[in-house]
């Protein structure tokens, strides 16, 4: 099995943002410059190979996602109060979409529960690949994949 590509991650994330939040996000080549605070969500998965997916954005990006998911104005206080929950839910759907697209639906797979945290800086983390999309507000949303190495030949 080949390793997943940034293009696959970008396609999965872009499709989920479009279908869940009616956001048309475009892939960007350059790594974003992060200033605190950074909203980050993480979800673990088990399938043919296990791994972790992480989704990060700025607070304004998370508010944009929440507002679009709920069909409310980004200035509505509810958009801010639901912003981290919205980021976690997008990652939850991304997790299911990634696992079933990459490993297929014929093999057993399992997602963990997503959780979010607020970071002061973007840590250097082991990752198999990464994709960054730009939201309509201009804020970046970055999807990182850390996939366990494939088992070698017996």
């Amino acid at each position, binding site marked *: 099995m080949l390793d997943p590509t940034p293009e696959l991650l970008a396609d999965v994330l872009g499709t*989920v943002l479009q*279908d*869940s939040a009616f956001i048309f996000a475009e892939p960007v080549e350059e790594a974003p410059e992060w200033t605190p605070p950074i909203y980050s969500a993480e979800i673990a998965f088990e399938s043919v190979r296990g791994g972790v997916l992480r989704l990060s954005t700025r607070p304004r990006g998370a508010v944009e996602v*929440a507002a679009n*998911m*709920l*069909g409310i104005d980004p200035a509505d206080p509810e958009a801010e109060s*639901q912003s981290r*929950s*919205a980021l*976690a*839910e997008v990652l*939850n*759907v991304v*997790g*299911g*979409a990634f*696992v*079933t697209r990459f490993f297929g*639906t*014929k*093999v*057993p*797979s399992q*997602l*963990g*529960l997503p959780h979010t945290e607020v970071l002061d800086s973007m840590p250097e983390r082991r990752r198999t690949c990464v994709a960054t999309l730009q939201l309509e507000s201009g804020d970046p949303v970055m999807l990182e994949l850390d996939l366990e190495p494939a088992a070698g030949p017996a």
Partner: protein
Amino acid sequence: MSAAGAEEKVALEVLIVDDSSVTRKMVRRAVGLCGLEIGSVLEAANGEEALAQLRQHRVDLVLADINMPVMNGMQMVERMSQDPVLSKIPVVIVATPMSEQRVERLLDLGARAYLPKPFRPEALRDLVMEILGDRGTAHA
């Protein structure tokens, strides 16, 4: 449909079960937009809360996630199927894409259908009308 026929219809009481508050709001919004006659919409954050709600209120339809803390959707469906009253309430699993094996397991346990996230309100309406028949009445 005649006026008399319309009067006989009872609005659906729906229970949404999901640990994500934003998802519960999204599903509630979709329920409101799908064109069905909806009465009240209840919410629960996990399977245990859902079972408590189901024992206190009349519910015609349960829309439930799978991955939840405390009691997940699969455990909730299993518990409902073992209860002579709760087993009559249809459960639609509204969850992220999953393996065919998991979907089959859920249907074997008693779930009536699986609706992958994200979904359109019309897809929910069609599914509910298929499951509930005449009880799942759409607005004219």
